[in-house]
Every structure is written in structure tokens, then in C-alpha cells.
């Protein structure tokens, strides 16, 4: 069965500093990978996705992620964090089951941004 590990429960960075959130997955085939962001009390918003092709994918809000098959990783990065980026970030792997697709999520990383 597939699984996702986000080893950092909580990260604090200063505004303007760079950010990297870690994600490791376990899946036997080529994975479909996602990063979602959740503000408090809100639903999840898709930041970016990897299906195939270029291993460096660009997303919304200046985020990017790099797929590294050899390390089973899909880390999220941002060169300069803004205070509005404070939120919880979830990595997910997608698998196809019959006519449905299912996502398995990591437990999330809460990002705090200090001014």
C-alpha cells in the first residue's frame, strides 16, 4: 500500500527566508504527487502536481517541487516566504483503483512565518 511521510510537523521561518518542506512517499509504481495548502478552518487548495515529465514542477504562489525518484521524495520549495504563506501543507500520492482515483495524504507540516 502507498504511504506518505512528512517528517517535519512544524517549521518556523522568517519572512523573506527560503523554505523547503520535505515529503517522502512509498509506492510501487510511478506516483502521481501533489502538494496542497490549508489555511485554518478552510478547505485544501492545490499548489502543484507531478504526473510525469519534467521533475521540477512549478505551482501557484511561487512554489515549486522537485520529484526525485531515487530518493522517493517530492520536496516543496519557495525562495522567499511571505507572511501569508503561514498555513498547513500536505503532500499526497494518488493511485488509481478501478474507475476511481484515491489520494493518500501525509500528516502535514504546519508553517509559521515570523516577521
Amino acid at each position: 500500500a502507498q504511504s506518505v511521510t512528512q517528517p517535519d510537523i512544524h517549521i518556523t521561518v522568517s519572512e523573506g527566508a527560503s523554505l523547503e518542506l520535505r515529503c517522502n512517499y512509498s509506492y510501487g509504481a510511478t506516483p502521481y504527487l501533489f502538494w496542497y495548502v490549508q489555511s485554518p478552518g478552510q478547505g485544501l487548495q492545490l499548489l502543484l502536481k507531478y504526473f510525469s515529465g519534467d521533475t521540477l514542477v512549478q505551482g501557484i504562489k511561487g512554489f515549486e517541487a522537485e520529484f526525485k525518484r531515487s530518493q522517493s521524495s517530492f520536496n516543496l520549495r519557495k525562495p522567499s516566504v511571505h507572511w501569508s504563506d503561514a498555513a498547513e501543507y500536505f503532500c499526497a500520492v494518488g493511485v488509481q483503483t478501478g474507475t476511481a482515483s484515491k489520494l493518500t495524504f501525509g500528516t502535514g507540516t504546519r508553517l509559521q512565518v515570523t516577521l
Partner: protein
Amino acid sequence: SQTIHQWPATLVQPVGSPLSLECTVEGTSNPNLYWYRQAAGRGLQLLFYSVGIGQISSEVPQNLSASRPQDRQFILSSKKLLLSDSGFYLCAWTRTVHEQFFGPGTRLTVL
């Protein structure tokens, strides 16, 4: 464009009472629909998914049930709520492979 609605936004219910949460999607047809639960400080747990009217797949045994009476309507129900049913419930939909779009969620507190 497509939109997804959930209601109510918040709900406080006593233990043993029934539950009905509703999710509707606009602007698309024949979506796959999903119910997730997010407990405090934890990730998302897939509860149910549906690939069509009347077709429900359950991911975990629990006190809840789901129904899909119409193409773009997905309902989460319980006959008798437990304290452990408290959480944030999210509905999601997809038409393409894997990419899911989430609703605003319902905060359920069982007292």
C-alpha cells in the same frame, strides 16, 4: 467554472443524535466524489468515495454512511453520533486522474 459547496459550515450535536452533511458540485457532470475526515492535528482520512449515482465505496469501518442520490450530490450521515465523530469533514471531487478539488469543509463537534 466548477464550484463545490458544503453545509452546514459548523455543527454542534449531542452524542446519539443523527447527522446529515451535504456536498454539492456545480459546473461539471459525473464527477467522482469523496468524503474525508480531518481530526485535530492529523492528516486527512478518506472515508467514502463514489464514482456514480448510488455507488458508494467505504474505506474504513465506522459509525458513518454515505449516499449519492443525484449526480452532483454527496451526503454523509450517521444514525447515532459518537464523541469520536468530531472533526473537520471535507468533500472533494475530480473528473481527471487524481487531481481533487476540495470544498470549504464542515466543522462537527459532538458533545
